[in-house]
C-alpha cells in the first residue's frame, strides 16, 4: 500500500452511495451515476477513469452541487470536511464553491465568459470570498496568473478569452480555481481539449500546485496516461458504477477487471511494453445492459460467462474487497499465476 494511507484519517471528501437520476419530462429516467463511493484525503490525488459517458462529469457536478435542481434526483451522501452537501442550501454551497472546493472544466474556451476580461473573471472569485479591495484583488490576480505560468500577466488581465491560446485559457481557469487556496480541486478532463504538448504542461502544472499547496485533487479522465503521471489511487468507472479501485501501481501492474485490462491494453504505455499491440475494447460504451440484469460490461467482455448475466443470490455483481487497498466488481477477473500477496482469488471464488 502507498504511504498515503497513513495520512490523517480525516478525509476532505467522503462520497457515499452517490446516485444521480435524470428525470426529463417525457423521457425515460437515466441513472447516470449509480451508487458511487470514494474518499479523498488531504494532499491525495484520486483518479476517476472511464470511457466517455460513464458518469464521471455527473459525479463531479453532483459533488460540487452544480447539477440543475429540476429534472435531477441526487441521492446518497457527499460530505465535504464533514459537512453534508447533498440537499444543502444554495447559500451554503456558494460559500464553499470557489473558496474551499473548486473545479476546472474540460473545454477552456467555452468555460470562460467571452465578453468579460480575464482579469475580472479572476478577481470576481477573490472579491466574492475574500475581504479584498479591488486593487488588492487585481494584484493578487496578477500573482496568480504568474504562478500558473502566464507570461506578462498585467497585460493578460485586460484581455478577453478569445485573445489567449488554448493552453493559456486553461491556465487562467486553473488560476481562478486556485485563487482562494481550496482544500479540494476537481479537474474534469482538464487536458482533453488541448494539444498533446500543452497537455503535458498543464498536467505538470497541476502536479506542482497540488504538491505545493497540499490540495486534494480529484482527476477525472478517460486517459490512463494522465492517471499514470498523476494519481495516487484510481477508481475505474463503467456505466455509472465503480468497477475497480486500486493504487496506481497495482492497477497498472495487475488490472483485475477485464474492462480495466482492456483500457490498459488500448493505450500506449510509456513504461516498457513498447512493442505490445494496442487492442481496443470490443464494441462501444452503448453496448451495455442494466446493472440490475447482471454485469453492464458483459456484452463486451471476453471473460464473460453465463453467471455474469444473471443476478446471483438476489444481488447484482457487487463491489467487493480484492486484497489490500483494492476493490473489484467482477465474477471472472483476470488471474495472475504466482501471487505473492495470495489475495487475488476473492473475485474468482464467488
Amino acid at each position: 500500500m502507498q504511504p498515503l494511507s497513513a495520512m490523517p484519517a480525516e478525509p476532505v471528501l467522503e462520497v457515499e452511495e452517490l446516485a444521480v437520476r435524470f428525470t426529463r419530462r417525457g423521457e425515460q429516467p437515466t441513472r447516470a451515476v449509480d451508487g458511487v463511493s470514494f474518499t479523498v484525503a488531504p494532499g491525495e490525488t484520486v483518479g476517476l477513469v472511464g470511457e466517455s459517458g460513464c458518469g464521471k462529469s455527473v459525479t463531479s457536478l453532483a459533488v460540487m452541487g452544480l447539477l440543475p435542481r429540476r429534472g435531477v434526483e441526487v441521492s446518497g451522501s457527499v460530505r465535504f470536511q464533514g459537512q453534508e452537501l447533498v440537499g444543502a442550501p444554495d447559500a451554503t454551497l456558494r460559500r464553499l464553491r470557489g473558496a474551499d472546493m473548486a473545479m476546472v472544466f474540460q473545454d477552456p474556451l467555452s468555460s470562460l465568459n467571452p465578453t468579460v476580461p480575464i482579469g475580472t473573471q479572476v478577481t470576481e472569485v477573490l472579491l466574492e470570498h475574500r475581504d479584498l479591495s479591488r486593487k488588492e484583488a487585481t494584484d493578487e490576480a496578477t500573482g496568480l496568473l504568474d504562478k500558473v505560468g502566464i507570461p506578462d500577466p498585467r497585460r493578460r488581465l485586460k484581455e478577453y478569452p478569445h485573445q489567449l491560446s488554448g493552453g493559456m485559457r486553461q491556465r487562467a481557469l486553473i488560476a481562478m480555481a486556485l485563487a482562494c487556496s481550496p482544500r479540494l480541486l476537481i479537474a474534469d478532463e482538464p487536458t482533453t481539449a488541448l494539444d498533446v504538448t500543452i497537455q503535458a504542461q498543464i498536467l505538470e502544472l497541476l502536479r506542482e500546485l497540488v504538491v505545493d499547496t497540499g490540495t486534494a485533487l480529484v482527476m477525472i479522465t478517460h486517459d490512463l496516461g494522465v492517471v499514470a503521471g498523476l494519481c495516487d489511487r484510481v477508481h475505474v468507472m463503467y456505466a455509472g458504477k465503480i468497477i475497480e479501485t486500486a493504487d496506481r501501481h497495482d492497477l497498472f501492474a495487475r488490472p483485475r477487471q477485464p474492462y480495466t485490462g482492456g483500457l490498459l491494453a488500448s493505450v500506449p504505455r510509456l513504461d516498457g511494453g513498447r512493442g505490445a499491440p494496442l487492442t481496443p475494447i470490443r464494441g462501444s460504451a452503448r453496448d451495455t445492459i442494466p446493472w440490475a440484469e447482471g454485469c453492464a460490461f458483459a456484452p463486451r467482455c471476453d471473460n464473460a460467462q453465463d453467471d455474469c448475466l444473471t443476478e446471483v443470490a438476489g444481488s447484482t455483481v457487487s463491489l467487493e474487497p480484492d486484497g489490500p487497498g483494492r476493490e473489484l466488481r467482477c465474477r471472472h477477473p483476470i488471474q495472475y499465476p504466482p501471487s505473492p500477496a495470495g489475495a487475488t482469488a476473492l473475485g474468482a471464488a464467488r
Partner: protein
Amino acid sequence: MLRFIVRRLLQLIPILLGLSVLLFAWLRALPGGPAQAALGERATPEAIARYNELFGLDEPILVQYLRFLGRAVRLDFGTSARTGRAVTTEFFERMPGTVELTVFALIFAVGVGIPLGYLAARRHGSWLDSTSVIGSLLGVAIPVFFLAYLLRLLFAVELGWLPGSGRQDVRMDATRITNFYVLDGLMTREWDAAWDAVLHLILPAIALGTIPLAIIVRITRASVLDVVNEDYVRTANAKGLAMSTVRRRHIIRNALLPVSTTIGLQAGLLLSGAVLTETVFAFGGVGSAIYDALFARDFALLQGFILMLAVVYVLVNLLVDISYGLLDPRVRAR
C-alpha cells in the same frame, strides 16, 4: 474602428445612387402625374403642360435626373409642390418627430421586452412563460395600422385619457430649438410643453413598439434559455459567485448580444412602421409627410425624404454595429 466607419460611409454612395434611380423611375411610372394631382382630374391638357413646364417636368427624364442629382449633392431637393416649402427644411422639421417616436417606441419595446423575456426564461414552463410566448406571437401578427387605430379609438377617442393626434397641443406655443419637442421643452425649461409632447408620444409609441416588443421578448427568452446552459455560467456557479453576479455579469450580458442585433434589425422596421403609425395619429413626422406626398404626387418631397431617410437608416445601422462591438469584444477584434 475609424476605417470601418469610413468604409461604411463610402458604401452609402452606390446605395444612394441606385436608390435615387429606382425612386426617380418608380415615381414617374405612377399613374397620374403631379399636375393631375395638383390641378384635379378635369384639368385641361394645356393647363397640365403649363404646370409641367413650370416645374421642369417636360424635359427628358435623364436631364431631369441629372439636374436633380446636381442639386441633391448640395442637399437641395427643391420645393414641395404641396406645401411650397423647401424639401430639406421640411425634412429637418419633421425628422425629429419621427426620431422621437422611434426612440420612445424602442424604449417601450426594450424596457418591457427584456425584463419580460428574462422572467419568462427563468420561469420556464410557468403561466408567465406561456402567456408571454402566446402574447409575442399575437404581437407580431397584429398589423401596426390596425393596432394604432384601436389604441387611438379606445384611449384617445372613447376614454380620452391621452391625446390622439399631433405632436403637441398647439396652445402650448412652445419654443422650438431642435424640433425634438421633448428635448426642446427640457432645454427651455418649459416642463408642461415637454410633458405634453411625451403624452402625445405614448399611444403612437406603443402602437409602433408592439411588434419589436414581441420580437424582443421572444429573442430574449430564447437567448437566456441558451445562455444559462453555457459552460461559462457553470464556471461562474462553480466559483461560488452570488446569484446576482452570475445573473448580471454572466447571463444577462451575454444573453443581450443576440437581442442587440435584433434591435438593430428593427431600426428599418420601425422607420417603415412609423409611416403607418404617424398617419393614424396625424403625427407630424416624416412618415405622415411621405404618405401625404404620395397622394399629391409630390415628387420633390418624396425623392428628398426617401433619400435622406436612407441616409438616416444607414447611419442608425452603423451606430448599432458600433455599439455591438462595444458589447462583444470578439466583434471588436475584427
